[in-house]
């Protein structure tokens, strides 16, 4: 299905649909997320049965601050759709989609690890890339690059621009 037709079909259930660069993006509220995914998967003309990726972006100056993006595709029809959910800065949680798409397990853990977004109902929401005792969520725009505590004999390596000669 080409993007315009796909968008038309998705619009019958999800009103907020944008087509840009040949990609269809639908925006839903977090309370409607599971319902929307369930419909997209069960609708025969759409049949979005494959979840490629779950990730997020952080916009500290905007409201909503976080956007979680789900990249869906269809095994039968070879078309794609992006589903996005906006989350406020002080209440960054949304339902986990693991019951619908088991592959979301590690994607959601990674998003939690790097952005601190909480996926309610996730079976095992722990850090995945960083050590369990890590403080902070490094892909947030408010986290600087560098300045990582090495936790080795109390050593601390300051950020590059704040290093001084020993």
């Amino acid at each position, binding site marked *: 299905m080409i993007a315009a037709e796909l968008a038309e079909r998705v619009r019958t259930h999800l009103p907020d649909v944008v087509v840009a*660069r040949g990609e269809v993006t639908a925006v839903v509220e977090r309370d409607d997320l599971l319902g929307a995914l369930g419909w997209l998967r069960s609708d025969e003309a759409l049949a979005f049965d494959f979840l490629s*990726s779950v990730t997020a972006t952080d916009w500290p100056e905007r409201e909503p601050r976080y956007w979680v993006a789900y990249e869906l595709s269809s*095994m039968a029809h070879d078309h794609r759709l992006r589903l996005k959910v906006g989350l406020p800065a002080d209440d960054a949680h949304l339902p986990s989609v693991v019951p619908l798409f088991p*592959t979301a397990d590690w994607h959601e853990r990674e998003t939690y690890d790097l952005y601190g977004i909480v996926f309610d109902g996730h079976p095992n929401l722990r850090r995945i890339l960083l050590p369990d005792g890590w403080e902070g969520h*490094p892909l947030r725009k408010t986290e600087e*690059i560098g300045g990582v505590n090495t936790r080795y004999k109390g050593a601390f390596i300051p950020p590059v621009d704040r290093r001084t000669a020993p």
Partner: protein
Amino acid sequence: MSFDFRPDIDPRDPLSTEEPRQETMIINMGPQHPSTHGVLRLLLELDGETVIRCEPIVGYLHTGIEKNTEYRTWQQGVTFVTRADYLAPFFNELAYTLAVERLLGIEAPLRAQVLRVLFCELNRIASHLVWLATSGMELGAVSVMLFGFREREDLLDIFEMATGLRMNHAYVRIGGVVLDLPPGATDAIDDFLDMLPGRIREYESLLSKNPIWVERNAGVGILSAEDAIALGVTGPTLRAAGVAKDVRRDEPYSGYETYEFDVITRESADCYGRFEIRMDEMRESMRIVEQCLDRLREPGPVMIEDPKVAWPSRLEVGPDGIGNSPAYVKHIMEESMEALIHHFKMVTEGVRVPAGEVYQPVESPRGELGMYVVSDGEHRPYRVRIRDPSFVNLQAVPTMVQGALVADAIAVIASLDPIMGGVDR
């Protein structure tokens, strides 16, 4: 830790003919185990030799590639993403570059697209050869290990000849590729294509009917098509379950729709099927490479003309890798002030990419490699997310391993071909 893995046997029942279940043992396999393809750690709960629970633990190779790209220009991003899945550098570069080109609304010249396809397919062969070599080693076929790395070395020589580097080439750039093929490269590729088919037959004569190889792979690590799709598994593992899914054919990029090749599938859904698929995929890649060489007879530009996007410097392969060509350095340093200003601006600030977001999938040797790239209109990426197939495929290990023997866990991980650089990024 209790776990009901054989609920039919009551360990306290004195009349049970089966042996009562003993206490289980939890062991760590890795992160430094030689058969874990780098630094993968598996937490295994064992009952004797049987795995009753398995949890892959990743993150030991996390290098913050995604965060780093946010602090560099768009062009520098290529040099970061190429280091994610280090056995498939051209694919990382291509996915990133295609995503940025779509945001910019440009397309690389035809010859550059053919070169991209050519190097991706050679890279696919190299990656499958490393897979063959390491899997052979893990399952006890050490001669295959030596053979696989031997042939891959010839490919790395070709890559070095064309890009100046054996790995992490940063060859695919926004708007095209960095260099045209050097003299002698086509002959080297021709020689390689003449040599490889015989070598693949040699591997198959060593392995296909080898009783140990068949015993360790056939019927092991079964992952049905339904489970694979639910777990997001792509690439040879999915195709071994009979699903003909290949991004090159289903959502063509870089002109793949104009090449003739077959999507290889098997119905067995086991480790042996994945072995057969990779052997056949090397042959398909050779077919594509031959078509690329035909098309490369026509000369043409390899970088987009637009000076606002194209990398200004003219590069050459020297004895120590790619560098600015002496003629270009003379041009900007001695002849043209405007060229120097333009060079300085492009190199320090780079291009500005219109705000927006794209998700660009490509078919890497391990499955769907996707780049989710977001721009806020500045000269640096706002967000780059690498959907690495190894990361997603590893989630399927518990499904394939639980209930099997410890030795099968090795075969299963080998058959998935996870590259930890891509998993942890």
